[in-house]
């Protein structure tokens, strides 16, 4: 296999990885924020039972190894995407696996906002919506971005596993060419591409956190 062939495989795989990770990261960001905020809001008061149920569901999601989740949600994936093979199909288990992970990060980031600050806003007569939007989420934003960076990197790792079930992407390449056909160049190229990609994600994340944080 020539280097230009390797390069072609690589760009294809990279594109697929970026697509899978990008879409599932976006869905995870929305879903995780929602669940995380709910976990914090329902912690005390009348909605406490909801908190217990939600927490239990999140814990189940967190305790399943991704490879098992991948297989377990196959019927659901088929119902949603229409197929169980390919990058689009992989997005479903990736998102389901990452939401609980990110939700817990969101929850702990929101809890880091000093209670004093929340009390001050309440004392000013802020509505609950204002407290969530303008105080909790805004004050926790640097921590949320840092947490999302960690989640995206975890998704890159999960997405490589999705290759096992024909999910495509860099992981798929590494398994099909590097492992099954002993194409060492492809293996090395994939590893390098993954390392560079993760570094890049981390750098962008760190940069944003630095820009957003005024502590």
């Amino acid at each position: 296999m020539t280097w230009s062939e390797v390069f072609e495989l690589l760009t294809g795989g990279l594109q697929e990885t970026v697509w899978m990770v990008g879409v599932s990261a976006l869905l995870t960001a929305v879903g995780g924020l929602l669940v995380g905020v709910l976990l914090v809001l329902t912690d005390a008061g009348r909605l406490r039972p909801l908190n217990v149920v939600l927490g239990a569901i999140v814990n189940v999601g967190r305790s399943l190894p991704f490879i098992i989740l991948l297989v377990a949600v196959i019927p659901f994936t088929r119902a949603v995407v229409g197929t169980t093979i390919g990058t689009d199909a992989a997005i479903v288990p990736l998102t389901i696996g990452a939401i609980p992970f990110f939700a817990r990060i969101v929850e702990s980031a929101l809890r880091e906002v000093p209670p004093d600050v929340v009390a001050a806003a309440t004392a000013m007569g802020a509505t609950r919506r204002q407290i969530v939007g303008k105080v909790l989420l805004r004050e926790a934003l640097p921590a949320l971005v840092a947490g999302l960076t960690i989640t995206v990197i975890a998704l890159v790792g999960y997405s490589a596993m999705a290759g096992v079930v024909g999910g495509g992407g860099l992981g798929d390449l590494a398994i099909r060419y590097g492992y099954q056909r002993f194409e060492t160049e492809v293996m090395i190229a994939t590893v390098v591409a993954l390392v560079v990609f993760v570094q890049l994600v981390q750098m962008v994340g760190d940069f944003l956190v630095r820009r957003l944080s005024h502590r």
Partner: protein
Amino acid sequence: MIEIRGLRKTYRSRKGSVAAVDGVDLRVGEGEVFGVLGQSGAGKSTLLRCVNMLERPDAGTVSVGGLEMTRLRRGQLRLARHGIGMIHQHFALLSSRTVAGNVAFALEVTGAPRAGRKQRVAELLEMVGLTGRAEAYPAQLSGGQKQRVGIARALAARPKVLLSDEATSALDPETTESILRLLHDLNQRLGLTILLITHEMTVVKRICTSAAVMRDGRFVESGTITELLRTPGSELARGLFPLDGPTEVAGATVVDVTVSGPEAEAPIIAELARRFASDVRILGGSVERLAATRAGRWRIALPGAPDDNREALKFLSERGVVS
């Protein structure tokens, strides 16, 4: 302006229950500065947080500006809170917003029209002496400056009442002075009613017109500063003017004399010496300016036994408090 009756708040936990506020009555008139003094754990913060319903009292009533706070529904409570400013020991500013942004937050919360906000922010920053720091973030400010932001924010909605939870406790003595001067100034200029809690006697000395001492959830004494200075054995009076001379002198009667108001300026000791005991000795004491009044307190030694000084003691009791 603030009227509290029979207030009780108990915290229950697995380890047992703590009666944080255990039957407090309190009246703060319009334009008054009322200080609640007490050690950590006395229940001061809980008391203050019951005024704007950050804590729900278990029993008793709290009315602010004639509005019964315990009976308000959620929406009404939010509106009532717009009329009650609050400042905090650790400032409680939004770290993600600039100084101007923090003040603007208070205006956003009260739904002030967008158009006038910028000007009102500038006005408030000028009021607290922070013009020029509008674009700084809290992390770039000193403690005193942060508290000034806190004060500007608390005043954004033009409240009648300000609650202060240990607002100067995290500050050094000089900064404390400047913040107290600002609060005193705002009290005078805006007619702001202030209910503050503190564990520092200086705060009471500098700005309070009335005060209470709180211990284990109760007020052990309470009244205007002038009244308290006239009350024999008052802890606050003793705290405001610590006396450190000897309490016993051989062959003499040692008494503590507290006078307030115009009497504090009068040459009482000189008159005493002239009329009764030429050998009267001052063991300790001072005359000081309080927010509400001037007051003096001395420990003096009169030669001879108490019985020999009956006339002198009578003279002193007519002028002030002798203990």
